[in-house]
């Protein structure tokens, strides 16, 4: 149809998203946002998987993504439950105030 896009571009896009995810994980102060940035990182990984899967003409990479989604769902259930529990106890979602223990 038209010009090919190098696989590396997809990978770089994945790297950009992953790095933004890391930055957000480190910078954001709201627990939920931190959790969201982990999801962003997982999505970046998924893109990498799909790109490589395309490159190798193997669907096993896609299956990995499938599993990552399931795991992300499970993690979301547990993580949000933990967040709800901590909000009930502390009435805040700021990580800097979740500091009963010495850092």
């Amino acid at each position, binding site marked *: 149809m038209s010009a090919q896009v*190098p*696989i*590396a571009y997809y990978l770089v896009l994945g*790297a950009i998203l992953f790095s933004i995810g890391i*930055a957000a994980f480190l910078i954001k102060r709201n627990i939920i946002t931190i959790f969201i940035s982990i999801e962003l990182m997982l999505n970046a990984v998924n893109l990498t998987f799909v790109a490589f899967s395309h490159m190798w003409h193997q669907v096993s990479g896609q299956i990995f993504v499938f599993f990552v*989604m399931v795991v992300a769902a499970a993690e979301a259930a547990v993580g949000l439950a933990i967040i709800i529990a901590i909000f009930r106890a502390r009435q805040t*979602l700021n990580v*800097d105030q979740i500091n009963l223990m010495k850092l």
Partner: protein
Amino acid sequence: MQLALFLIFGVLAVAGAINLLLQRHPINSALSLVVVMMSLAVLYWSLGAEFLAAAQVIVYSGAIMVLFVFVIMLLNAGEEEHTTGSRIAYVAGFPGAAAIFCLLSFVFLSERKAMGGTDLGGYLSHSANNIAEISRLLFRDLLLPFEVTSILILVAILGAVVLARKEQ
């Protein structure tokens, strides 16, 4: 067309991610992530993974992120406040992330030739088999992980119940 798709949705994804970083209210961050996910879904489709594209929309943006939005709405904890901790994080966060990005991109781009490019046409012409192929692999070679995932989900359900339950 592939390049156009990639550029449009790649830029959209990056914009969404940066918006996630910059927004102060978690709900905005969550919605930015939904934007990222939708753009990624399109990119998956453009890479010949249409089943995943659908799964991405249904599972990720349609279920997981809704759950996030739901919890954010439920807790309604307001915008995030910046404290002294965040300044340290700024100092540590940006350079670290930038370093990782530079390293990854450098390797990707330096080995760009070896990885080749997308051949959407050839791939998509057999795309009708994609789902069948996925299921063949999933229910044969990778049957065990698939089945063991049920334990994972069981654990997650158990955990959600245990953690969110109010103590008497």
